[in-house]
């Protein structure tokens, strides 16, 4: 039986083994390389995607769990107005250095603002705590989310 997934509004038949973690299916089979692999241990947030509107780390759970759910990757974030606002705010605040954590952070920020259009600073920090940034862009990322929330 073939597995099928809905990603960024499109339905895909999946050939990968059902035990394959979602991130490998996205990157290797579907060539959606925006979702990053950072640890494979659900510890760093680089692989974050949205599943039915919630942030999910995609590097451990097998792809079969995501059947019949709506997956949004960084490539589909701009499909919503909130997603676009977050992306524009990250550019305006230059909220990245190397950029490896950025996909996951943009996804997390879009999910946060979809849930709570005006999060306070503590709520934003809590939502981002599963995500690592090693270049130290944290203050800029927080400013970008504040900007996206108020524009």
């Amino acid at each position: 039986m073939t597995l099928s997934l809905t990603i960024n509004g499109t339905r895909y038949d999946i050939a990968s083994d059902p035990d394959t973690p979602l991130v490998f299916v996205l990157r290797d089979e579907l060539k959606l390389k925006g979702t990053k692999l950072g640890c494979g241990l659900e510890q760093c947030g680089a692989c974050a995607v949205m599943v039915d509107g919630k942030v999910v780390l995609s590097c451990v759970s097998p792809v079969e769990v995501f059947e019949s759910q709506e997956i949004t990757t960084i490539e589909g974030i701009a499909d919503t107005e909130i997603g676009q606002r977050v992306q524009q705010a990250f550019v305006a605040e230059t909220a990245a250095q190397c950029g490896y954590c950025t996909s996951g952070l943009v996804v997390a920020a879009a999910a946060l603002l979809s849930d709570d259009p005006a999060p306070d600073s503590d709520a934003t920090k809590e939502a981002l705590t599963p995500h690592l940034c090693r270049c130290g862009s944290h203050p800029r990322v927080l400013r970008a989310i504040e900007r996206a929330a108020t524009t």
Partner: protein
Amino acid sequence: MSLDAYPLVSDWLTPEADRLLIHTGKVDIGQRISTALVRIVQEELALPLSQVAIAPVRTGHAPDEGITSGSNSVEQSGRAVASAAATLRARVVALAVEQQGGDAADWVLEDGFVHRPCTNIRLSLIDLARDLPPDLPIDPDLPRHIPEQPPKPDMRGITEMVTGRFTFLHDLDLPGMWHARRISPPHAKATLQEIDRAAIDKAEAKGMKVVRDGSFIAVAGPREWDVVKAARSLGLACTWDLGGGFPETDVFAHLSAENAERFPVVDGTPQTAPVPAPLDAPDLSARFERPYQMHGALAPSAALAEWTGERLILKSHSQGIYPLREAIADSLGLSADQVEITHVPGSGCYGHNGADDAAFEAALIAMAQPNTPILLKWSREDEHAWEPFAPAMAVQVDVKLADGRIAAFSAEAHSDTHRGRPRPGPNRAGPAKLLANRFRAEAMDPYVSPPNMGTHAGMHRNLDPIYAFPEKRLVKNLVRGLPHRTSAMRCLGAVTNVFAIECSMDDLATQCGMDPIAFRQAHLTDPRASAVLQELARRLQDRGPKPDGTGRGIAYAQYKNAMTRVGIAVDVIVTDAAEVRLDHAIIVADSGRVVDPDGLKAQLEGGFMQAASWALCEEVTWDRDGITSRDWDSYPVLRFDNVPVMDVVILEGQDHPSVGAGEASPGPTVAAIANAIHDAAGLRLRRMPFNADALTQAALEM
């Protein structure tokens, strides 16, 4: 240095199609050097962004600028590109005069054209540049041309990053490409006895290839997840000789003068001379320590390699593609011409991480599987356990006071080498520093680096205090034989040295009954340093008294005593759980002329955050079975739940040359946090990290 070796305009700038291509040997590792270089060219030549591009940084094409390190990119590549652009500007204007008449002063550069105002004569700058002789030498003495309203290009790549379209090395996907993982030994002393044949057969039955050279083992195949699973199975199928276990050395006990090769340091430079006697009856005597810490890149190291049977084509996120090419060619018995390395970005590296090792390992796998591009990725555990760490370090400070001032200051640094990069050198230094060469059948011993005698290099970077003390006694103690492979990490010794000096300055200010800023000012002679501290004091005054329950600490340093000057103030809260919460930070910096103000702020902020993580969280741990800090749980780092409000103030120094800033803020950050903890809780923490265990222990010892 860059200009001497590459003196022609065409070494740095060439017209190609409708664009001017910048050639640089410095790679962009998130420090935004490419944004700065584009901006320099845009400023000088008034070119629109669409007409400026950066050539791939590739061996055989790019200028050889050694390693991208030491906060030197703007000073070296930036200066060369600026001078090349100024020469090109003068020559295209001369060409316009030659072709269309008038004086040089009659022509202006505007939006990609050389234009004569009040006429309709507009000559394409790129076309004129194409007519210049290829051997046109750079005139390094031409004045820079800086427009009143300089261009403000977005950081290069930012739009691609936020949309997931930026290509990292890890994202490369060539036709016919295979993925690879290595199977790491349990620890550095282990050697492979055997692999269960059944595990190899199983991998090969699935179309994968197992590569073995001594104790170096890797597996490669067309599908990444299959390769990940096979690597795990093969790991379980290996029998290792553990060589008596990994040494459980008490490193801080070992970091002492008795175990060291010792050098007095004068004006930042180690001397081959007897070490002066210690200070007699010091008024302050304290030792400051930093454990082994890791670069901890967010993306584990990776490399792409293809062996054609004659040439080795590599893509790497190494900071030094030319030295790496030599080390790899030497390791494999190839000529340098047979090896081509192109830099492709990885995640931020903060120094010498596993990038170079991964490139060589990808090459070993590729040579066993010719004509197949091999994308090797280290696992998270590989990176945590096998990258070359920043060495543990200890600094002993002794000070004598007289009349409320410092009369004599002694600082002794102790650490293993910070020089682990695979640079060429005697005794095949390059190959010996590549990790896999320690495990191949023809194994090389770990390389013993000679002492670094450079000014403000290695462990003695910023050991020499910036203050004018009547007597200074500074000693470098190089200790070898420690358990871990070590190399360069952001700031090298400056972190522990500034931590030691600036915490001592605070305690000495207290002893002398003085305000910490006033006490520092009393010992400074550099007016620009004083201006930084004055501005810091002014900002603190504006902020008013520190909030209840917070502690405030300050620190000052000038990176290498020659680059960016930074003053930092931090407010922290020490919670009932003995955790340090960062509340507010002010960073005041003077970097001379600023090319990319937002990029400069980003570097200072990023340096603060990384150093705060070192200060509060990070420590490599191990036992006889090997490294135990193998993931982000066992090696915690600072996360978004502990980010202060941050104000960054740049003092305009337009009359002074640009100096690097990428490593300027970490040292003072660690010291300011330690001083703030002392102010908040009365605890003087002298060993990083200042985590809850350390604070609790310090409270118990009070």
